């Protein structure tokens, strides 16, 4: 078995809704291994999104710990969280979330920009990645000039640009037609083969089938954690 790249241990999350404390996560512990291709499933309200936000260092657990690589993120301040997002995480969203004013290339470069890389370095990596996702001829297009599938491929290239420890994908094919969705999934397969660690939240069984490990959540707890062979 490969080494652990990230792990949550006994993570809880409680939101305050006015006077009412709503506990969304009730002690979740998962180890994520290098090269894992994981789908996280479960009915709405099961805590998938909350878990993803914590995994993405966009939110912090109320209790418990989250190690990303060798770093415990539950003790980090806002700046450190920003830094670790930029350095160790890649995000792929259902609605692509590209910045409309920026070109394909500039969108892909964005994480590198905040990492303080030189312009030439960023440009080189972004061009390479755009090629890799099949958008080498669209470098200077703006997002609205691209189809949904193309936009999502830009987002994937962007998620790869900082060579992250884990890539987090939230319903990556949710807004796509089946053909574009299939292309995206093919890209995911490639990434998996290259040894990237992918964590994907999805409703779709079909998507989950392609992953190699399925985690089901229910009511803020891990219901099942199955490794498919």
């Amino acid at each position, binding site marked *: 078995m490969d080494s652990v790249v990230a792990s949550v241990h006994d993570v809880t999350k409680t939101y305050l809704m006015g006077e009412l404390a709503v506990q969304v996560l009730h002690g979740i512990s998962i180890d994520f291994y290098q090269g894992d291709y994981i789908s996280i499933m479960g009915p709405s309200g099961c805590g998938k999104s909350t878990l993803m936000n914590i995994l993405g260092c*966009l939110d912090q657990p109320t209790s418990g710990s989250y190690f990303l690589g060798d770093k415990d993120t539950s003790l980090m301040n806002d700046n450190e969280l920003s830094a670790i997002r930029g350095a160790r995480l890649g995000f792929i969203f259902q609605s692509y979330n590209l910045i409309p004013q920026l070109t394909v290339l500039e969108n892909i470069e964005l994480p590198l920009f*905040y990492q303080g890389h030189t312009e030439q370095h960023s440009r080189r990596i972004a061009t390479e990645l755009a090629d890799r996702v099949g958008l080498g001829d669209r470098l200077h297009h703006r997002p609205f000039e691209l189809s949904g599938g193309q936009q999502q491929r830009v987002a994937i290239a962007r998620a790869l640009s900082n060579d992250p420890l884990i890539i987090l994908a939230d319903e990556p094919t949710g807004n796509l037609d089946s053909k574009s969705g299939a292309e995206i999934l093919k890209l995911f397969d490639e990434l998996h083969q290259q040894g990237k660690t992918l964590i994907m939240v999805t409703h779709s069984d079909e998507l989950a089938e392609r992953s190699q490990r399925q985690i089901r959540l229910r009511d803020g707890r891990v219901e099942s954690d199955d490794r498919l062979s």
Partner: protein
Amino acid sequence: MTDSVNHATAASALQRLTQHLRPVYWTRLRKTAEVGIKSIQAHGLRSLLTVLGIVIGVAAVISMLAVSEGASFEAQQQFRALGSNNIIIKSVKPASMEASGGSNMRPQAISYGLTYEDILTIQQTIPGISNVIPSRIIKKDVRHLGRDISTDVVGTTVDYPISRNYNLRSGRFFSADEMLAQRNVAVISDEVASALFPMTNPLGESIRIDGNYYNIVGVMEPEAYSNLGRSQAGSSNAAPTRIFIPLSAARYRFGETLVRQAASGVEMETVELHEAIIQVEDQDQVEAVGQIIEQILERRHRRVDYAVEVPLALIRQAEESALRDQIVAGAIAGISLLVGGIGIMNIMLASVTERTREIGIRRALGARKQDIVQQFLIEAVILSGVGGLIGVVIGILIPVVISLFWGMTTIVTITAPLLAFSISALIGVVFGIYPSIRAANMDPVEALRHA
């Protein structure tokens, strides 16, 4: 112990600072600025309307200062032309005399103004006076061949040109000997020369005033700033046409009583001297001497039929009024820049709300709060800076237009546009801070969920 800790933090702060000054930092700044420009361009009209307040404020302050600076410069030049060491005393016809003269149909002789004795007293009692140049100024028709011109004939002494920094174009001023001998010699102003001698050299020619001929010995340079040095006998607005003759000759030829055909009948007035320039040795004493002269004249005259002008005091007044103008311009600029700043804050708040999702994305991709603050702050500064720049251009153009169409002197100093521009950029920072901080403090999760 605490000292060494302070040293350590200071050192690390310095290190952080120098790290920030790496070329990468500048690249980032430039890229952030590019993004800012793009999003401003995305809302061109809205951005333009937003910065209008700044544009107007900056343009107004620059052009107002230019006009005030020009007016003050012009006034100071005029007063300087009168001589900053000079005190000018003029005879003034008291208002009460004009009224009584008007109601009476029979000829009436009125007498007012400076006397030789006044001048003598002043010269003898006040120390530090280097020179006194008295003048009689009489309006006359001057002829040469077929041409004639109505002009001020100034009977004065040999020092007149020196006291006024008034130079000869050609020939010479009349001499002390000619003065003593009451000779009929004349020095004419440039304007008189061009009116009476359009083609020929006036030197050596004669002109006729009343029944007498005067030999022209010199021509004066055009007077640069003469609006205020003009005698009350002269016309108020035309270019000064003047002829200078020895005071002795003027006294001998024209006497002291002038007969004039007025609307109400014949008017006679006796004025010994129309004007006297008192030169003071020490510039610091000018204003004090001016006050003493006022006191002496007050004692010697029953009516106020004289006026004492101290150019130096007028220069001071011009400076003060320029300062007042500047304060007013500053206040107007302050108000419109404040309004402009509020406009910028308004638009930045709108921009932050509209771009909530973008903020979320950037935060997810590793932007720290300070990166977001920087981004929106730069945008606000670009917005106000562009406004300031447009304002500077307009503010420099307006004085040019004013000068062209109204002939006013306007002076755009280097400091005014520079200051106005820096203030406008500063406005961007000040009014951009709150929206930027608001943007940075958004919860990334919430921001990403935003439609």
